[in-house]
């Protein structure tokens, strides 16, 4: 409290403005959290003609097809996640910075949806030259991961970095970074149509709580459409 009393007027105003913005944000968030999640990425309207009338469809940013290999040498493609909700991230096994925390948090998602076949986890290695199938297998075993749920992916390096862009994720080789790669610690939530519906800080427990709460919204969305 004493700290708060000593802040300058300017800081106080900034704090007040932030608090207001936060209230507005959460107010907004609460109203939507019950119903639906936003759809991220660029969108474009496409006109088409149905029965002589012009109808405008919105084309949303969609994750393109992909083909990687997981820790059990199984091919993992868009077919693996077809009709499912999935959570994805980018990491590398020798990462000395944020990855262990990300994996601690991803384990929580894994535990929460362990028995739900409609939820899949995909963790891409951004160091596929080092992270071979054998290395990923050892890593998964030590994490206590079952393949059917959580795929640790390796493959063509360019393809992995292209996919990172598709998820709007930052990932690059960086000699200056500890471990030789820099990447964001975000988790991305992808819906049954491979659209990005959420991103979360994978090193923050509260943000991952939000992810765990958001997943059922997408699972229920599918039921509603049927």
């Amino acid at each position, binding site marked *: 409290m004493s700290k708060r009393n000593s802040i300058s007027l300017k800081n106080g105003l900034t704090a007040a403005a932030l608090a207001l913005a936060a209230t507005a944000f959460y107010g907004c968030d609460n109203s939507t959290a019950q119903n639906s999640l936003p759809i991220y990425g660029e969108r474009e309207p496409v006109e088409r003609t149905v029965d002589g009338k012009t109808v405008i469809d919105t084309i949303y940013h969609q994750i393109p097809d992909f083909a990687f290999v997981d820790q059990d040498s199984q091919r993992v493609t868009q077919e693996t996640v077809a009709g499912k909700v999935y959570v994805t991230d980018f990491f590398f096994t*020798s990462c*000395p910075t944020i990855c*262990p*925390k990300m994996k601690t948090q991803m*384990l929580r998602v894994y535990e929460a949806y362990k028995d739900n076949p409609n939820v899949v986890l995909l963790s891409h290695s951004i160091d596929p030259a080092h992270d071979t199938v054998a290395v990923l297998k050892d890593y998964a075993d*030590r*994490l*206590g991961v079952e393949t059917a749920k959580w795929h640790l992916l390796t493959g063509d390096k360019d393809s992995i970095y292209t996919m990172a862009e598709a998820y709007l994720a930052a990932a690059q080789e960086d000699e200056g970074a500890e471990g030789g790669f820099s990447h964001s610690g975000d988790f991305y939530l992808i819906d049954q149509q491979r659209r990005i519906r959420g991103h979360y800080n994978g090193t923050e427990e509260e943000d991952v709580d939000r992810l765990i709460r958001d997943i059922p919204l997408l699972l229920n969305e599918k039921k509603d459409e049927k």
Partner: protein
Amino acid sequence: MGAFALTTLTQCFTKKKDEGKRLYETHCQSCHMDDGSGLKSLIPPLAQADYLQTQRDQLPCIIRHGMDGSIVVNGVEYNKEMPGVEHLRVDHITNLLNYIQTNFGNDNPRYTMQEVEELLEACPPTR
């Protein structure tokens, strides 16, 4: 000499006491976690780890130069490279080790700076 006295004096007024904690947060926490619990069978725990007692004399060198290869902590095998932090001074390493040895439920003897200095001088040659 004056500068030395000033430095020593200033250190009394800085958060020297928390240095071990700050060093832990900077260099160790992202892998060994906030509570020293480690990560499954990938990263060994520091919390109530027998290794801290059985390998006490090796710890200063491990912090400075890192380690690799297989080790067993509390009966679990780990095999992951740990990077060293070469630029840490003797007093840094002492404070860091004393923080680890007396937190996370650990209640192990502290190190003196002289002890750490001697142990560091005897580090095996690095790769």
